[in-house]
């Protein structure tokens, strides 16, 4: 048992921090909560790519570094600690690359991986549909094969960043005549293809990262398919474990966590720092306990991956706990700030640059995206504890 990172990993951590500090000093970015999903900056992603920090766990032959998942953990932990704008490459680095490596053909690997690594192309995820949310396998976007390839028709929804990305990693129905889990395939589609239209969905923070994506007789080549035709469901299940278990699940609002601790130390309450108030101490300490527990749960998933094992229930477990922690973080911060907490970021009197109110508004989505907490608890109960299916 060893709860330390290696000296090499710690020096890598310092390298990442030094880079981020200098970028911040240059005014390239300002720490933001949720920057992994709303901080879209192709320029910044290209810089990260030049550092070799996209696809660092991928094989060297495709431009990766062949480094461990624990090394990547150090990187992602620091990117999130600083709230750096990494949304452009985040999905690609987290799950699209690994899927292409596991299921793609040699040609697909050679075509896409180096471009992802260099920060040249950015992928969105086309999974949910209006009638296929938690029941993802009910998806209905059809891919019909003809002699030239496939013709796509249908609609995706809640597609983060579809208006800024160049590709979409799409889950489609290739066989409607078999049980629903058995007729699904995965494919890569150029978002500039004729017949695709992207329509914004403004979320309750007022921000736009969600979209609806419509497919109207979109033609794609046969080579668009990733992995085995009609076996996409099995591929998705593994991919979702990557999606669910990254550091962002516990650290997306880390800038707020730091800010509220600082606020408690610097704000006076009845003549002494707010942080001396027993109730405030208990609440901030409880958040610290939960944060440390959550971070270890995420570390454990990376450790399981580094052992070449599949985190088949650990990812669901970690995501459930960590996203609920972030909701509690947002709520506690709002309560500590009192009436100021309701002020929107643009208000002059807004506390903490409006970080708390942003987190308060955005965190309800955390327990929905990438598997609702209910679906994840089902997975944990059945896969993790062996309870029988209903």
């Amino acid at each position, binding site marked *: 048992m060893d709860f330390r990172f290696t000296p090499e990993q710690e020096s890598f951590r310092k390298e990442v921090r030094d880079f981020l500090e200098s970028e911040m000093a240059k005014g390239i970015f300002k720490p933001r909560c949720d920057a992994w999903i709303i901080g879209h900056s192709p320029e910044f992603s290209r810089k990260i790519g030049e550092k070799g920090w996209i696809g660092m766990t991928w094989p060297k032959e495709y431009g990766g570094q062949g480094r461990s998942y624990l090394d990547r953990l150090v990187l992602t932990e620091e990117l999130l600690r600083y709230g750096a704008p990494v949304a452009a490459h985040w999905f690609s680095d987290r799950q699209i690359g690994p899927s292409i490596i596991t299921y793609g053909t040699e040609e697909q690997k050679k075509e896409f991986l180096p471009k992802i690594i260099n920060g040249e192309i950015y992928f969105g995820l086309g999974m949910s549909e209006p009638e296929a949310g938690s029941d993802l396998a009910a998806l209905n976007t059809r891919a019909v094969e003809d002699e030239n390839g496939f013709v796509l028709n249908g609609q995706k929804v809640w597609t983060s960043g579809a208006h800024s990305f160049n590709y979409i990693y799409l889950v489609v129905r290739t066989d409607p005549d078999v049980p629903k889990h058995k007729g699904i395939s995965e494919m890569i589609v150029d978002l500039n293809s004729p017949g695709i239209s992207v329509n914004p969905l403004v979320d309750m923070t007022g921000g736009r990262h969600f979209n609806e994506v419509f497919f109207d007789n979109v033609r794609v080549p046969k080579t668009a398919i990733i992995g085995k035709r009609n076996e996409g469901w099995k591929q998705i299940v593994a991919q979702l474990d990557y999606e669910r278990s990254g550091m962002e699940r516990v650290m997306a609002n880390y800038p707020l966590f730091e800010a509220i601790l600082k606020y408690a130390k610097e704000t006076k309450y009845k003549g002494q720092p707010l942080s001396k108030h027993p109730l405030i101490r208990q609440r901030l300490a409880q958040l610290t306990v939960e944060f440390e527990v959550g971070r270890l749960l995420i570390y454990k998933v990376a450790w399981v991956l580094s052992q070449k094992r599949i985190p088949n229930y650990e990812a669901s477990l970690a995501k459930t706990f960590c996203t609920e922690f972030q909701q509690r973080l947002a709520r506690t911060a709002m309560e500590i700030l009192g009436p100021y907490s309701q002020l929107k970021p643009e208000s002059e009197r807004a506390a903490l640059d409006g970080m708390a109110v942003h987190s308060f508004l955005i965190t309800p989505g955390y327990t929905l995206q990438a598997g609702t907490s209910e679906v994840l608890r089902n997975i944990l109960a059945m896969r993790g*504890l062996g309870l029988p299916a209903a």
Partner: protein
Amino acid sequence: MDFGFTEEQEMLKKMARDFLTSRCPKKLVREMEKDEKGYAPEIWKEMAELGWMGLAFPEKYGGGDGTFLDLAVLLDEMGRACLPGPFFPTVVLAGMAILEAGSETQKKELLPQIAQGKLIATLATTEDSPLYDASDISTSASEESGNFVINGTKLFVQDAQTADLIIVSARTKKGSENKEGISLFLVKKGTAGVTTTPLMTIAADKQAEVVFNKVVVPKENLLGELHNGWPVLGKVLQYAAAAKSVEMLGGVQQVLEMTVSYAKERVQFGKPIGTLQAIQHYCADMAIDIDGCRLIIYQAAWALNENMPCAKEVALAKAWVSDAYQRCLISAHQIHGAIGFTEDHDLPLYYRRAKAAELAFGDADVHRETVACEIGL
């Protein structure tokens, strides 16, 4: 980073599981609740023969040269089995205190006896306002003609009735801070002026009030430096909080396993209740709590083993498991239904012990306050 046990630890775990399954059934646990001594001497002897008491002591003191993490593996299994008896106070409290602070003579005399199962020992430090810090201590010890005379009342002393040796904390000098002027003394069984009265606790776990009335102990019974006992005691209390957390982890894991298997067997509305999502989600929440416990607790045990400063790690662990175990028990009881509410069921054994363990060495509030200090609040 490595979250796995070594091969030796896996073997130790299996050995402990097998031994406790056969030698410490719940029937024995129940008998020992009513037994005055609270332990079965023949099992105590067998545990000593297996090398458990001395596991974490160096070989030169008759120990097994193991680590605190090895000891944690054992405590995990003991918590699962609800092992009754004085292992914890003897090994974790007294053993670690002697190992940390004892003179060579004291270590050579006492540790081999503990390792052989021939000496039961405990620590008496908490008094009438137990916060598990230096402010707890108001018992005094004054130097009189080459001896120390101890006066005061200690509370919640584990297994004091059966202890051959009590390590007691006392104030030997007034200091400007609570932590100053504390010393530790070895008080042997039968010393005049020591009165032990059992406390009737819900876990029937043999805690006691110990009154020291003009108890005279010779100078050589001082454990560690005069007036400077707090660093040792503070460290022992960290070991204790971490060790108690590990024991709780074993308990709560067993509670989950009992609950999951009951949910698979119990049929209502024509199917096992474990098929129902409400039940599945209770179980999932327990699993989340427990996986968190495992990581945060073993992190503390590991940090102690590495001899790192780890006040924060220990406090994180005890704060989390104290609350998490209670949450899990509420779900476990809910799933077991009325049968789990009966005295003859195993679940109440865990329910009662979990509360005792939560209260021992600082509950969640106490440890959250430590976390607050450690993060600079």
